[in-house]
Every structure is written in structure tokens, then in C-alpha cells.
């Protein structure tokens, strides 16, 4: 027969263990697990590439590099060849040392191309494996149709004037990527299933499970 204090301790330990397990599994889920930018193999500043010309960028459209975003499910990261469209010219061989570009980082891209070595970018926006998000359909919803004002349950939930351009529709969920040196998820962006289903219901989108889980 164990003393009563010991029984209490054991019960407390078991209950505490269960609470810790539940807390870890809850807080490591997407809405909480996001928030910090993972380190990337090559420092790619979206400010320089996608930022507008007034702010010192080049102003490349999102869908120029993320080519599949209007054509299919995944937005896709570009092949190294795409980088070489420009960086064949803009690199250490052709530029002076005092140009404002970071020649050392660019040289790493050129090296990757010459070595046939694809860049293993770290994924920033994660969904669980059993969810398939289709970029194409959502971009079509935001960029097409007649002029209308809608409150979407994403971002800051402000009334939004639709239709948008493709670039603007990316920012609805991903935030102002053109202003980010390191890409990180938009703060407060919920990736819970309820958010998806709410929006699908209000906008007459299909709510069958196999639309996303397949």
C-alpha cells in the first residue's frame, strides 16, 4: 500500500504528462508552428527582385518565377535556369566590384547552374501532407468576375475590392512578399480547416472533403 502523498504525485505526473503532450501537439500545428523564416541555402531578397522600381527593386511579377501558380495546384519554385535568364549577365564576370548587387551570393547561383546542382530551398508555407491547396482556382476567384467588394476570412479581414491583379491576389494570403528580405508567413494567418470551409461556404465553392483531402 503506497502512502497517499506518493499516489497524489503519480497522478499529478500522469495528468501533467498528458497535458504536455496535448499542448505540444496543439501548438506545433500549422497556425502556431508558423511565424519564423527558415534559413535558406542562398540569400534571395524578394525586395530586390519583386520590389517595385521606385523602392529599388526590379519589379518582376510573381508568376514570372512561380510559373505554375496560375496553371495548376502548386506554385512551384523556379528552376536554376530561370535565375540565369538575368544572372547570365548580372554576375561577377560582367559587373564591377562596386555595383550594389551582392556578387558573392549571385556567384553561388551561377555555380549551382554550372554544377547541375538544383537549389534545395526551404519551404516556408507549410500545410499538412493530407491537404492539397490549389493555387490556380483561388487566383482565378480573386482575379476574375465582375467588380465586387468582399470580406475574406484571411489576413486582416478588411473589405476587399475584387477583382485583383495576380500579384495582389498573392499578397492576400502571403502578405507583402515584395517587401520581405527573408520570406516569412503573414502574421496572424490562420491555416485551420474552419477558415477554409467558412470561405468556401460563403462563396459557393465546393465543400466536399475530397476537394482538398485526396
Amino acid at each position, binding site marked *: 500500500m503506497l502512502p497517499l502523498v506518493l499516489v497524489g504525485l503519480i497522478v499529478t505526473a500522469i495528468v501533467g504528462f498528458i497535458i504536455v503532450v496535448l499542448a505540444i501537439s496543439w501548438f506545433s500545428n500549422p497556425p502556431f508552428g508558423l511565424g519564423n523564416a527558415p534559413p535558406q541555402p542562398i540569400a534571395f531578397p524578394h525586395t530586390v527582385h519583386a520590389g517595385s522600381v521606385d523602392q529599388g527593386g526590379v519589379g518582376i511579377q510573381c508568376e514570372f518565377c512561380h510559373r505554375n501558380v496560375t496553371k*495548376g495546384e502548386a506554385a512551384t519554385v523556379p528552376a536554376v535556369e530561370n535565375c540565369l535568364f538575368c544572372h547570365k549577365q548580372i554576375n561577377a564576370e560582367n559587373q564591377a566590384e562596386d555595383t550594389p548587387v551582392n556578387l558573392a551570393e549571385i556567384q553561388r547561383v551561377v555555380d549551382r547552374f554550372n554544377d547541375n546542382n538544383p537549389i534545395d530551398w526551404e519551404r516556408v508555407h507549410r500545410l499538412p501532407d*493530407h491537404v492539397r491547396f490549389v493555387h490556380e482556382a483561388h487566383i482565378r476567384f480573386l482575379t476574375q468576375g465582375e467588380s465586387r467588394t468582399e470580406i475574406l476570412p484571411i489576413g486582416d479581414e478588411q473589405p476587399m475590392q475584387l477583382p485583383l491583379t495576380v500579384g495582389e491576389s498573392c499578397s492576400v494570403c502571403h502578405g507583402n512578399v515584395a517587401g520581405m528580405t527573408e520570406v516569412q508567413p503573414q502574421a496572424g494567418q490562420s491555416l485551420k480547416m474552419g477558415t477554409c470551409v467558412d470561405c468556401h461556404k460563403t462563396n*459557393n465553392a*465546393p465543400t*466536399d*472533403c*475530397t*476537394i482538398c*483531402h*485526396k
Partner: protein
Amino acid sequence: MVTNRIDHKWGMVVDLDKCTGCQACVVACQAENNLPINTKDFFLQKRAYEWIRIERYWEGEYPNVKARFIPVLCQHCENAPCEPVCPVYATYRNDDGLNVQIYNRCVGTRYCINNCPYQVRFFNFWQPNWPERLKNQLNPDVTIRTRGITEKCTFCVQRLRRAELQVERVSGERLNDEKLKAGNYAPACTQACPTNALMFGDQNDAESKIRPYFDDVNTFDIHHEEERTTRGYRLLEEINTRPSIIYLKKVDQYPLNEDEDHV
């Protein structure tokens, strides 16, 4: 909720006269749906994953033998025995006429597997594992099922979703399912079949090539089977699961005769 969708009821007709038992459908399914590689151990334990399998039957005595093949996949029943037993509603019949399995909702009770009369549901007893060189051939549109959940044929629902997107992209407007005809979409097994033994289409589409077979079998049920004008029948018709798959009987020009020496 207002919807611009028209209910589909996808179905398949399997012509056993054309089936040669080549197993191309099995391989196509394996590749399309990220099925784990079946080893000898899996088969010996009767735990192999085959969403579509070729059942082989021998007819006659040696040397007068004939092999008969029946491809068996999930029958996508209207009265599916697997559905009411699921305690978490992980399997249900959706508006496309498919019995779908929602993997993230499944808790692995295996009631559905035990209640399925066709034995086409499979339980993941292990975490699926592929050799390193095969990891890049996995289909990115299909979930990799983890250990402890049930999986089954989905009629390649990922291809259906892709076909819907394609229709939307070409027409440039919200999906109107009238445009989505059977020609846009076929499961991997149907596409791979070299003899066109598997035919796929929409049962609700009057022009679909599978429609006459379904009309015939639906008109004359199991009690009036001899009045059917086609060769169609359903598997285990007497238990009234009303499958979406119809089999066409093999017509044997040279039936086995025990007396003759038929070679």
C-alpha cells in the same frame, strides 16, 4: 446552399471477355496512388495493398484448363456496407457518386474492412516505405497514407479534380459540370488497360457509353436476371449493395467439354 454543380455518378464497366489478366491496371494503380511496394512478406501475411487486383480462377481439369480473370476494385456501392459502420464518418458517398475515404479523419478501427464484402479496403499496418530511388516517382497529388489508417480505391479522385480545374481553365468561368463529361476524366487503371476491358463514364450522362449496361442491369434485377439483354451483372448482386461497377460475362465460343480432348 446554391450550387452550380450537377451530381455525377461515375461508374465503370468491366468486360471480362476482353480482360487478358495482364495486370497493367494493377501496376498503373500502384504508381498513380502511391501504394507501398508489396513484398513477399506482405502477401504471406495477407496484408498486401492492391486497390485493384486480378482474381484468377481455373476452370476444368488438366489438360483441359482455362484461366478466368476478374479485376476487382472498390465497387463504389450505393448501399455501401462500409459506410454505416464507420464511427468517425471517414467514409461516405459524395456528390460525384464516389465512396471516398478521408484519410485524416480515419482512426483505424477497421470496421469498414471487415464489413466490406469485396475485400477491397486495406489497412496500413506499417508506415509506408520506398527505396530512395523511387521517392521521386511518388504522385504529388495523392496523400501518402500513414500507418494505422484504412485506404481504398478512390476512382482516382485527384484526376477528377484535375479535370475540373482543366474545364474551368479552358472555359474561364466557374465550373459548370455539364461541361465535365466522361471524356475529360478516367482513372489510371482504365487509361492503362491495353484491351479496353475497363470502360469508364458517368451513369447520369445519357450519352455515356456505359449507360446502356447500367440501364439494362438496373431494369432487370437479380430476380429477373435471365431477361437482361446485355451480358452485364454485378458482383454479389444478391446482397443489394448496388455497386457502380458492372461486369460483362465472358462469352466462351469453345466451352470446356470433359468428353472431348480440347486443346
